[in-house]
């Protein structure tokens, strides 16, 4: 698939009026996340988590700096960034993750005689699908419902991390941070010169040119 927003990099707007200082500070910190940093998970859990992240959000192989999803999940737990509610059937965030990762690893062992991290893409997807549908019942789940773990932890924590990252914003053509400058043109098919341009068939070159100009103040 060709790029939908060729040449669009939301970070090129960093020094334009679309970004204020507080946003730069926050995003700089996110960009500085060490992809291997993990304070909460042990090394076995870490490998499993990274493997899950790679299947929930597959990133292009040629992406120079993949979004550090696993590190962002670990950070969410270590900073205690709770959601504001917890299903009575699910343990607190960290505990749920620990138990869920262990259980998925156990399921991988039982099914494929390998740890989750060593599974091929299809095998991993198969296990995750089974979890999504609540078909996994290894004793390692220890009362945690696989379906709830998938819906309430895996998905929101990993998907939420990915789409909070500028790399994802560039990928989907989101305008990104917008203060003090917001937007002027809000009608159908209308973009401000500081927004991503979509490469519809036949206008790839135009889109590229427009996207390269996005960061001009």
């Amino acid at each position, binding site marked *: 698939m060709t790029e939908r927003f060729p040449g669009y990099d939301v970070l090129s707007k960093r020094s334009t*009026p679309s970004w204020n200082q507080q946003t730069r500070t926050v995003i700089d910190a996110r960009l500085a996340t060490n992809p291997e940093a993990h304070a909460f998970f042990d090394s076995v859990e870490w490998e499993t988590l990274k493997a899950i992240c790679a299947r929930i959000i597959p990133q292009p192989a040629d992406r120079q700096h993949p979004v550090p999803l696993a590190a962002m999940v670990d950070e969410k737990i270590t900073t205690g960034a709770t959601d504001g509610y917890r299903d009575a059937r699910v343990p607190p965030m960290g505990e749920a993750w620990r138990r869920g990762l262990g259980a998925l690893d156990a399921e991988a062992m039982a099914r494929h005689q390998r740890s989750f991290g060593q599974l091929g893409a299809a095998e991993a997807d198969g296990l995750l699908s089974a979890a999504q549908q609540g078909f996994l019942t290894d004793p390692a789940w220890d009362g945690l419902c696989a379906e709830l773990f998938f819906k309430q932890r895996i998905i929101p924590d990993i998907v939420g991390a990915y789409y909070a990252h500028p790399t994802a914003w560039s990928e989907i053509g989101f305008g990104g941070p917008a203060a*003090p*400058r*917001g937007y*002027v*043109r809000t009608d159908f098919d209308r*973009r*401000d010169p500081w927004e991503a341009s979509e490469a519809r068939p036949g206008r790839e070159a135009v889109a590229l040119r427009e996207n390269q100009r996005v960061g001009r103040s």
Partner: protein
Amino acid sequence: MARRALADLEERLPAPRPTARMFRLPVRHRRQEATSAGRQTNVAAAVLALSVLADSSVEHYRGSFRNPAMVAPLGAAALTLAASLLGAADDRPQRHTGRDAVYALAALVGVVGLGFHAYNIGKRPGRLSWHNLFYGAPVGAPAALALAGVLGRVAEKVREGERVFGLSADRVLAAVSAIGLAGTVGEAGLLHFRGAFQNPAMVLPVAAPPVAAGLLGAMALSPSKPLGRIARLLLRLTAGLGVAGVGFHAFGVHRAMGGWRNWRQNLINGPPLPAPPSFSGLALAGLAALALMRGRDDD
């Protein structure tokens, strides 16, 4: 059609009293006055054209020039501006065919633009609603271009002599300026209403200019000296407001989020800088008309 309406109007009006004296004026003097009033009207058309040029540039840039026809008013306004400046510098007592053609083109583009803008409003959900009058393609802008064309045409006629379309030039000019002012008041009123008259100064353009327009209209129908004096005062005030308005609007841009640093947003979504001078342009035309009338009276 407009011509016949005006002629009808004049028939129904009492015969203008000062005409009797007109014939006593030395021809050369009258010519000079006419040329000077014509040139002042050229200046008025120039100011109006400048306002339209700047305004439609900004607005159609906002519209990303997605329809190629959106460059037409820019071209027409630029030509009108150029022609008007040339006209202002030209002290010959004759009309100029080139300028005349440019003015006719401006009027035509303005009228076609009105059609486009009305179509735009009509296809938006809500059709002819307050919301679409606020945010749809503005009706006032192409009307201003057409007005610049009409003013220019009148300017050319004025410098030729006393009669325009069979009517006395000063009164035609007064009428055109009064109608234009009234329209501009309507536009400013609409947009300032959209802005909820949040600043008391926003009342000014809907306070003084309507009175000026009314007095000017009254002068067109039946000129009188005391009326003329008040009209002149208010027209000068209106012309000044047009200039002050740019200042107010510049403050408005500064006042919006991000101020002038965020000019790419605030120049477009903030109060329009180019709009207020159209008041000045029309007031100048009105003053030219009054000057013509007075010139006749004084002799």
